[in-house]
């Protein structure tokens, strides 16, 4: 027998955490539509779904941060619907947040013990318990460090430790692996298992990292547009066609054909400023995907991270099934990723022909192929043929954009990335540029285009992501999004979660 511990628990737990028929409405949009969910002690439940599916809203309802319009939440038989969050956490239901929200000036130990004090423990017993939990999570070495000094992965784990200090019987983790690299995610996975073993609590994990979810969870529930569309073990979920459609777009599949480009939990910061905070997007083979968002949303950073001109802090970029996160830019181009940068990036003092030559630099070994490809591109952009001898700097904006696209095409990309192709162009020219993109896409080139001008990017794309403040706020088919009020909220950031008065 182990000596009595501060975290010794009553393991005889029968009850369960239950949500029944939960609906939440934000300004006419059903964020949750009669959703049922059950979490039993001793199991790990994954909650997945495309961005905007309602996962966080559901956690908010369960933990009392959001009052549902319909439905009940019961905890071991007791109805807790509409209780204040602190009352719910005293019933030993704990959660972590997408953004960790540690107390930055307190030490790791103090952060952990505060949560214990919050649920009514004395300072001393809270501290004793906090120590024990830090040891359990292998964070004891960091106990005296200020939270602000922690690396990202440790910060997330301290967030979990803090939640554990309330000795939860039910623990809800909201995107715990967001922004983590592979190694950190693996460590997190071990931590979650340790917690399950020690606490025998029910753990619910919201996550975009599919590998983690598939490996960790006993059961997985899938949400799409606020509805629960599937529930089952990982193997069942991976096979479920409805999940494929909802989660990965029409053609992709969890276990089937991987997307040509997959970005997983990408985090990029410039000094202290986070530009991307755990962004996951993907482009399927042959798809035309757009990313829209206001100025400063992180769109260009995303493009630069994909092409390797910006180093991410965390996350994984996979191209054609291979990780490319550590490759230099020019190698990525040679693998088939071509970026038409914002502002077009033509070489102004070089002639049009020389610009095209640079575009074909990846295929210098094969002169004949380069000649044929150049001819084809010039047929596609007849104006460039006329201007071959002119310096690119003398071309008009629209012609420069054509040149930039032509140059990118000469590297024979499998995916073409475009950063704000319509910026600074007349409307008529923008139409032309997009016609070209659609034509290229029909010819089989996958396209990822980033735009501030929303309607244009919507009209062309098969799928759209809305990026704001470095996070994906919404994902969906453009015509679904455009009619949704949630779209404006996601894009502009106002009129968001309207919380009914408590």
């Amino acid at each position, binding site marked *: 027998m182990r000596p009595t511990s501060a975290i010794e628990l009553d393991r005889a737990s029968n009850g369960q955490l239950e949500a029944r028929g939960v609906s939440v409405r934000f300004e006419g949009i059903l964020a949750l539509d009669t959703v049922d969910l059950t979490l039993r002690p001793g199991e790990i439940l994954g909650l997945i779904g495309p961005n905007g599916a309602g996962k966080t809203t559901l956690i908010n309802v369960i933990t009392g941060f959001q009052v549902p319009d319909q439905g009940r939440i019961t905890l071991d038989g007791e109805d807790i619907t509409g209780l204040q969050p602190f009352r719910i956490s005293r019933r030993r239901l704990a959660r972590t947040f997408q953004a960790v929200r540690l107390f930055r000036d307190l030490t790791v130990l103090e952060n952990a013990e505060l949560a214990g004090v919050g649920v009514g423990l004395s300072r001393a017993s809270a501290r004793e318990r906090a120590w024990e939990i830090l040891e359990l999570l292998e964070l004891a070495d960091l106990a005296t460090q200020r939270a602000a000094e922690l690396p990202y992965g440790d910060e997330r784990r301290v967030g979990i430790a803090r939640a554990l200090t309330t000795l939860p019987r039910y623990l809800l983790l909201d995107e715990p692996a967001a922004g983590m690299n592979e190694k950190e995610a693996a460590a997190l996975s071990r931590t979650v298992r340790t917690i399950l073993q020690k606490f025998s609590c029910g753990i619910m994990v919201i996550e975009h990292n599919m590998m983690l979810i598939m490996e960790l969870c006993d059961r997985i529930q899938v949400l799409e547009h606020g509805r629960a569309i599937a529930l089952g073990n990982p193997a069942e979920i991976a096979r479920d066609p409805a999940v494929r459609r909802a989660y990965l777009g029409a053609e992709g599949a969890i276990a089937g054909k991987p997307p040509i480009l997959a970005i997983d939990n990408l985090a990029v910061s410039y000094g202290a400023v986070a530009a991307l905070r755990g962004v996951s997007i993907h482009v399927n083979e042959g798809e035309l995907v757009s990313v829209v968002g206001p100025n400063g949303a992180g769109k260009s950073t995303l493009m630069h991270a994909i*092409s390797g*001109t910006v180093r991410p802090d965390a996350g994984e970029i996979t191209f054609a099934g291979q990780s490319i996160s550590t490759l*230099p*830019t*020019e190698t990525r*181009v*040679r693998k088939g990723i*071509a*970026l038409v*940068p914002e*502002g077009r*990036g*033509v*070489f*102004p*003092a*070089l002639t049009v022909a*020389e*610009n095209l*030559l*640079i*575009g074909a*630099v*990846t295929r*210098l070994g094969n002169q004949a192929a380069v000649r044929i490809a150049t001819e084809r591109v010039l047929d596609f952009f007849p104006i460039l043929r006329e201007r071959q001898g002119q310096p690119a*700097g003398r071309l008009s904006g629209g012609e420069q954009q054509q040149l930039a696209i032509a*140059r*990118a095409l000469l*590297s024979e990309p499998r995916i073409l990335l475009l950063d704000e192709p319509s910026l600074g162009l007349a409307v008529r020219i923008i139409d032309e540029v997009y016609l070209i993109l659609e034509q290229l896409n029909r010819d089989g080139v996958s396209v990822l285009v980033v735009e501030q001008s929303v309607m244009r990017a919507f009209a062309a794309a098969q799928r759209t992501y809305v990026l704001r403040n470095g996070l994906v706020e919404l994902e969906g088919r453009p015509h679904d999004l455009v009619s949704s009020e949630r779209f404006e909220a996601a894009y502009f950031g106002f009129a968001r979660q309207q919380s009914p008065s408590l």
Partner: protein
Amino acid sequence: MTLTLQYAVDALNVGGLYAMMALGIGLIFGIMRLINFAHGELVMVGGYAMLLLVQLPGPLVLALSLIVVIVLALGMERLAFRPLREAAPSTLLVASFALSYFLQNFFVLVFGARPVPFAFASELSTNFEIGHIRIVLLQVVSMTLTILALVGLTALLKRTSIGVQLRAASQDFRAAKLCGVRANSVIAFAFAISGSLAWIVSLIYSAQIGQLSPAMGVRPVVIGFVATILGGLGSLVGAVLGGFLVGALSVTLEATLSLQLRPFKEAVLFALVFLVLLLRPQGLIAVRALKERV
């Protein structure tokens, strides 16, 4: 009339030398945002290499000393600058200073600080006259070399693929990488050319001053740097223009300043450069990519 012509010939001579220094510095700056102050030491090492090899037949001396300088330039890039490629431009600048001082002091250690009298092919200092213009054979040779170097470089940059890649990279390095241009090979190529230009300067310069010293690279590098700035940092054409302009200014001042003021020739020269930059801070030829970055 003859005097004016004489000055023009001098100006071209001096200007050509400065132009090659400026080009060597500007080439590297254009793609790496590195102002390589150790460029002067390439000139210096070229001189000493010739001194050490002087017993060999002439063409062999030229070939071997050229190789020495190119290898040194490539070595600088590989050992000192490549590890810092992601670093801030100021870090690169400091690294180049460190490299410059290291090489100077290393040569002080080996050869002593005193100037060593040396002129490769001393017969070059013979004079002759055409009309009434006195011409030193060295000037003809150096002018020919300058012209050949500039023409050759132009052909290289215009006609070869690696040359076009280099020009693209010096206009917008990031856009070039986004086209698949290999950073390492383009930068190595730039250093090799930069080294070759330094070698030509060392050939002419050591013949002009008739001696070698570990610090002999400092003056040309400073003037070359000024010429680069004057022409527009990052622009290759600008570097050449700036070189010739500084050369012309310097010769004009030499000719027009009174005897008492002549010792202050360089002060006046740099004051004029100041003035030009006040009126046109971006240099004679502005580089677009630079504006976005700085």
